[in-house]
């Protein structure tokens, strides 16, 4: 502290002083949000060159006359002007989120918002979703234009489907590349873990940066086609130790049940329609959904400390989350810990960032088949029957064997099956930035990272379960070991040529990543038949890259960026091993031109043009890490063949070896993106935002397509075939509707329109109108290739291919009757036509934050338009055929009685009646908080808050929840309504 004051004194001496009724003004400049001093803030008398900066404790001292105006400013904060009317002026500066000096992450470096050329969105901590959030990606839902996140259901900590601009791929992964603190994550989901990100404590996250267009993402080359999300965690700061303790409790409850027939209604239906089966009815009256769902509680506790120890800024945190699902036995317990150290050495020439975060989670997975079984289990049957195995009612023959082709008791599935896992994960990196002492224009960066995880789990289905009666139980163990290593090394040269009014920087580097994943399962039947089946898979791949970037800034107004990446992947062979990914961008800070410089209304205007080529290399099929080589798959236990017998007449078995389909010329997908963006700020950035227009074309799609039969070793082959385009518009608007001392209101709005079209799918050009069925979209029946969704040329991906339902004069569907569309007198598959799409056309987000004195209030809502669901629940359970499809009697939905569908024929299951508009408006969360200052001392604050989540859904959709991954509505874990109460204490 001493030397600092000395330096400040020296600076003061240099400042020319005009002595004119001068007073000595003193005060402290603080950060309004954290109530912490801001060292180095500038204090200047307006209209003069007279000024000073604050010391380490935020103190300043300046000579000024009464009536002078003091201008307080600090990078990243809004400046304040205050008239001198005394001798002590304390100021609290507020962070300026719209600041043009805001740092923007761009991959292997950063730039400022003003100098950025790509389509990049940053979402800071205070803009993120509030509430009881166990999965980091839930923080970002509805916050960024063009980023659509659909949770896979209401299970605690469940994963999500993240789509940036609609997804550039068809069958290959459409998930963006996720980078946490400079470590790119392997996107594959792991057995035993719920979610790729569940090792990150959401409370540790300080911001998300989304790179959307190719000029921003191309530096990540072969993995960048679906966009990049960079997660930045909270870092250490120097100064006194600051602590934060936060805890909250939540109650999750079932929002709505699926409407199925009650016991009484079901009895009536059986009497009417199946009189010869009345004797099979039970005497109970059971609401099966009531039996399997419950209200669930959760707690979340975090503790963090940050500050300097021995001069090293650090932050450490621990967190513990416990959350039960609303489906019985579903539970998540997770403990996380993280450490960040940010030392600076050698006169700050060497800056080091060390991040390590670990998590340990214990999961209990409920058998989600119970949800589906609860919908259809005979409501006249009791839950329990003490005389039967396990004490639950199930269908058994008189000899004690389970009756084949019956639905299993859903509660028994939940309570008797034990499926739990323990997952440990560590992600750590150390990054060294070294500014050359003898050549300060050059910085060298070395980044070493590791991502290690280990999981083990058991899945025990005892013989008391009717489904495992014959096997006498099925007992499995599973596990996983993953280790991904990373090394990045790059040099950056920065130079300013004042003579030419030009700045430029050059970055060039190398990256090495190795991915190792071992997945193991073993299972054994209780009767020992077949012995122990072991499946042990190792996936290993290697990715090495050279990359470079040049930024050229002319006159602070004309910005040029060129990037180039060359990726080599072990997944591809020969000439396809290395791929090149160039990009270029130009931006023009229009508002810096003379004709706008002094504009009162336009405070910022920037035009951006970008072009780039990116890739997608996610081709792993099963354990096929080198798909260009002929691969062989050995058979497991029980899949052998008898070749003769031994001397005693006992058969001899030979295990088998299958040649796998392969494409010697397989390579990455290539996506070319064109982007036009306009950033603007109006009325001193009271209203700011961006408009983006893009066109993105993917060629050589990695898809698993029907190949001409006979041309390869199976009926489908993962290969490069076909192309698709995405084009759209995105609008982001941020408004500071109110900005007063004790009342602020920020409103954020985003809009995204995306149109997706499949251009080609086959080797032939003349297969127009043809499509390929999307796997997993056939819900009824147990054979066949067909499904409700198809990828069809000239249509969006995942279009529905369905019949036109015929209706009677009352507007009710005529069951089994569809329109003979081509008029050939027959109803066959040629009468099915493409109809609507699963993905939304439009996504809208609206976020509001109000601070009034010590109160804060926020809400977040979003809408999705043009997305249609295939209501699989109604297809399967809304048809009378379901009642007697098996040897038991099965319940149907209440709608069945109205619609009258009675058979599982294609004219019913593929009727457009079941393709329903699932556009929706969802109020995701409402949050209210109150902050008490000075709880035990000046710098302690206590915030208490309450959040309501999943408050309201407005939709015409007839199913339980319109938001369904990929539009296939079946067996979804219902999203609960969550009420949360919590407190956060800073001290």
């Amino acid at each position, binding site marked *: 502290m001493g030397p600092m004051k000395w330096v400040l004194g020296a600076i003061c001496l240099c400042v020319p002083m005009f002595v004119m009724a001068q007073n000595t003004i003193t005060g402290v400049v603080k950060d309004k949000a954290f109530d912490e001093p801001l060292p180095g803030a500038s204090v200047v008398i307006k209209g003069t060159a007279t000024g000073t900066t604050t010391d380490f404790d935020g103190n300043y001292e300046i000579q000024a006359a009464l009536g002078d105006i003091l201008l307080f400013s600090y990078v990243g904060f809004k400046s304040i002007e205050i008239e001198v009317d005394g001798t002590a002026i304390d100021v609290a500066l507020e962070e300026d989120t719209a600041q043009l000096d805001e740092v923007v992450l761009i991959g292997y470096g950063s730039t400022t918002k003003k100098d950025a050329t790509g389509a990049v969105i940053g979402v800071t901590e205070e803009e993120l979703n509030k509430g009881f959030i166990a999965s980091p990606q839930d923080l970002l839902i509805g916050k960024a234009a063009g980023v659509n996140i659909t949770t896979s259901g209401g299970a605690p900590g469940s994963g999500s489907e993240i789509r940036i601009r609609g997804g550039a791929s068809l069958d290959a992964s459409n998930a963006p590349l996720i980078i946490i603190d400079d470590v790119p994550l392997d996107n594959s989901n792991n057995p035993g873990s719920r979610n790729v990100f569940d090792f990150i404590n959401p409370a540790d996250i300080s911001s998300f940066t989304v790179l959307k267009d190719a000029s921003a993402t191309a530096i990540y080359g072969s993995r960048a086609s679906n966009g990049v999300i960079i997660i930045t965690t909270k870092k250490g700061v120097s100064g006194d130790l600051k602590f934060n303790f936060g805890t909250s409790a939540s109650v999750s409850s079932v929002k709505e049940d699926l409407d199925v027939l009650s016991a009484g209604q079901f009895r009536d239906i059986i009497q009417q329609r199946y009189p010869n089966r009345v004797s099979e009815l039970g005497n109970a009256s059971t609401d099966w959904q009531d039996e399997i769902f419950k209200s669930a509680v959760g707690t979340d506790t975090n503790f963090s400390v940050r500050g300097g120890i021995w001069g090293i800024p650090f932050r450490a945190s621990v967190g513990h989350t416990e959350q039960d699902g609303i489906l019985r036995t579903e539970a998540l317990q997770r403990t996380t810990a993280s450490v960040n150290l940010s030392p600076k050495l050698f006169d700050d020439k060497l800056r080091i960032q060390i991040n390590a975060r670990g998590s340990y989670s214990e999961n209990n997975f409920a058998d989600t088949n119970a949800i589906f079984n609860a919908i259809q289990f005979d409501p006249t049957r009791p839950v329990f029957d003490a005389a039967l195995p396990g004490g639950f009612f199930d269908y058994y023959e008189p000899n004690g064997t389970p009756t084949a082709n019956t639905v299993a008791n859903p509660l028994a599935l939940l309570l008797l099956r034990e499926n739990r896992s323990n997952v440990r994960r560590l992600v750590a990196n150390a990054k060294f930035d070294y500014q050359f002492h003898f050549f300060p224009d050059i910085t060298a960066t070395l980044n070493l990272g590791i991502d290690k995880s280990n999981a083990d789990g058991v899945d025990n289905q005892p013989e008391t379960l009717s489904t495992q009666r014959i096997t006498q139980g099925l007992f499995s163990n599973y596990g996983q070991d993953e280790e991904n290593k990373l090394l990045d090394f790059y040099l950056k040269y920065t130079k300013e040529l004042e003579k030419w009014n030009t700045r430029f920087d050059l970055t060039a580097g190398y990256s090495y990543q190795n991915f190792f994943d071992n997945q193991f399962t073993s299972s054994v039947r209780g009767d020992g038949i077949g012995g122990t089946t072991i499946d042990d898979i190792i996936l290993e791949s290697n990715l090495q890259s050279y990359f470079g970037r040049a930024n050229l800034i002319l006159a602070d107004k004309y910005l040029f960026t060129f990037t180039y990446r060359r990726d080599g992947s072990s997944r591809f062979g020969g000439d396809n091993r290395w791929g090149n990914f160039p990009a270029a961008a130009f931006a023009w800070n229009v508002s810096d031109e003379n004709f706008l410089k002094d504009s009162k209304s336009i405070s910022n205007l920037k035009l951006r043009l970008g072009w780039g080529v990116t890739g997608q290399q996610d081709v792993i099929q099963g354990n096929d890490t080198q798909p260009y080589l002929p691969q062989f798959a050995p058979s497991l236990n029980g899949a052998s063949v008898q070749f003769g017998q031994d001397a005693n007449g006992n058969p001899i078995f030979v295990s088998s070896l299958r040649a796998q389909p392969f494409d010697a010329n397989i390579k990455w997908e290539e996506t070319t993106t064109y982007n036009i963006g306009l950033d603007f700020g109006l009325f001193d950035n009271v209203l700011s935002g961006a408009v983006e227009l893009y066109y993105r074309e993917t060629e050589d799609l990695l898809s698993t397509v029907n190949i001409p039969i006979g041309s390869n070793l199976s009926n489908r082959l993962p290969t490069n075939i076909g192309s698709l385009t995405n084009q759209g518009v995105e609008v982001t608007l941020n408004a500071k509707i109110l900005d007063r001392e004790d009342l602020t209101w920020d409103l954020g709005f985003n809009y995204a329109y995306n149109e997706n079209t499949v251009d080609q799918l086959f080797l032939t050009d003349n297969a127009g109108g043809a499509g390929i069925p999307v796997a997993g979209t056939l819900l009824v029946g147990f054979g066949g*290739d067909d499904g409700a969704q198809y990828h069809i040329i000239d249509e969006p991906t995942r279009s529905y291919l369905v019949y036109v339902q015929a209706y009677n004069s009352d507007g009710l569907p005529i069951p089994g009757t569809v329109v003979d569309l081509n008029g050939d007198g027959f109803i066959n598959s040629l009468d099915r036509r493409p109809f609507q799409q699963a993905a939304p056309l439009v996504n809208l987000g609206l976020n509001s934050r109000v601070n009034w004195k010590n109160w804060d209030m926020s809400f977040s809502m979003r809408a999705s338009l043009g997305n249609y669901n295939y209501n699989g629940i109604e297809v399967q359970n809304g048809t009378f055929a379901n009642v007697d499809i098996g040897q038991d009697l099965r319940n149907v939905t209440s709608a069945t009685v109205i619609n009258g569908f009675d058979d599982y024929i294609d004219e019913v299951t593929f009727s457009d009646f079941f393709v329903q508009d699932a556009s929706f408006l969802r109020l995701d969360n409402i949050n209210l908080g109150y902050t008490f200052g000075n709880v035990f001392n000046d710098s302690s604050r206590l915030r208490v808050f309450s959040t309501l989540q999943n408050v309201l859904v407005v939709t015409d959709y007839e199913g339980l929840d319109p938001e369904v991954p990929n539009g296939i509505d079946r067996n979804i874990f219902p999203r609960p309504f969550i009420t949360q109460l919590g407190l956060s204490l800073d001290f």
Partner: protein
Amino acid sequence: MRSKHHFMIILAFLSILVFYGCTDDLDAIDTNNLNSENVFEDEESYIQFLAKLYAGLDQTGQQAPIGQPDLIGFTEGSSSYIRLWWALNEFPADELKWRFNDPGLRAIVFQSWTSGNDFFSVIYSRIFFQISQTNEFLRQTAPEVLDGRGVSENLRSQIDIYRAEARFLRAMAYYHTLELFGGNVPFVTEEDSPGAFFPEQTTGAQLFAYVESELLEIEGQLVAVGQHEYGRVDKGAAWTLLAKLYLNAEVFIGEGRYGDCITYCNEVLNAGYVLEPQYADLFKADNNRSNEIIFPVTFDGVNSRSFGVMYSLINGTLDSNIIQSDPEAFGTNTGGFAALTAKETFVDLFEFMGDDPFNDSPDVRASFFFKDGHSVDIPSEPIGSSFQEGFGYTKFRNIKRDGTPGQSSDFPDVDFPLFRLADVHLMYAEAFLRGGGGSESEALDLINDLRERAYGDTSGNVATLDLDFIIDERGRELGWEGHRRMDLVRFGRFTGGDYLWDWKGGAQNGTSISGHLRIFPLPSSDISVNPNLTQNPGY
């Protein structure tokens, strides 16, 4: 300042390490998995690869009973080769009823199928899976490839036999396309390396000639009858397939080859096969002991588990009533899934006391009917009808001759008798009647061998033969074994209106159906991706 230099040295060192140390990792072959670069280092791999060609007849993936499927996009359990081949030869015919509404099944049962029917895309993909795997096997065992790998003398001595067996299995797969699709299918051999190209379409006549030449060529390389391991192809299997090819030549290529049929029937008849003394033992868990079976598709409740043809033929014919009627008789306690019952036309083939099907029959082959609570006819539309409509028929049972059950209560040990001697007896007689030569007394003896086994004495023997008797006797002897549709086609009874059975053409009492239905359409899924293909006439 010294430490600064140290840091620079470390940086420099690391960059060298990076640039020169790791690029090899990219070129490393992934040794964790089996690929063409490493799998054949173990010579066991050759016989394991051959085993896959046999496994392809009933299994559907590399995991039992399902898992790691061979074909993508189908429900794996119902994509078994012989199960589907069996289904397409039985479901549209007059022997049995399957009552569940699998996708596409209604059209199969009512002979109203179109090219989009799932059954066709699955069996077609399955047959070509078998062909492609065989082609790869032949490529990987080509002499010059083996030279390059320097394989042992021991393997050298066996490999020609392996290759001949593989070519038999491929010839049989192409033979099945003659039966099902008229042979107008894509044609690929080991000359066509895997890729994504458009295979050329062949014709029935070309394919007939190819299958014939392949079988004649490998006949000499195959192991002699009785000398080979059980479950593997020997000369007997090749002769039987040749006999079948020639018997059906008039259907396939419009040219009778009955003399050639007699020739190869004689080869089989003189090879030492013996009719199983007890008919019922042919379909039991230890039928691998039978000397009548020429080529089986093997199943094992422990080591070869699949949802293949034996799984559905045993569990599908049972319900709890049948099992409770004689709990030890079926060797399964799964409760059955009650799918298959007999059509009246099948019951009517047999002789019953007093001409009443509810009475006993002197023919042991009619002893498998289950009649309690069942009707003999099928008054309701078959799909979705009650299991009690139509007699039960439980010829296949997962018990051994000594009455003890098979190893597993859900997956049977019973092998499927794809080729057996009784069929050759019937083929000889039929080829004789169709003018192929041979002797009438020989034909009569061969038929009466079967009759004596069925009746237990000579009371059922016949003195004269005609074709109408032959097709009925084929129904009685080979009932539910997957022969029926081809038999009806060969006798001109499948299409047209001369011969009807319940629900033929979708009408309760049966109705005439168009002649183009004699062969199935090529699946539309392949027509749309292979411009070289022309659809079968009428579709």
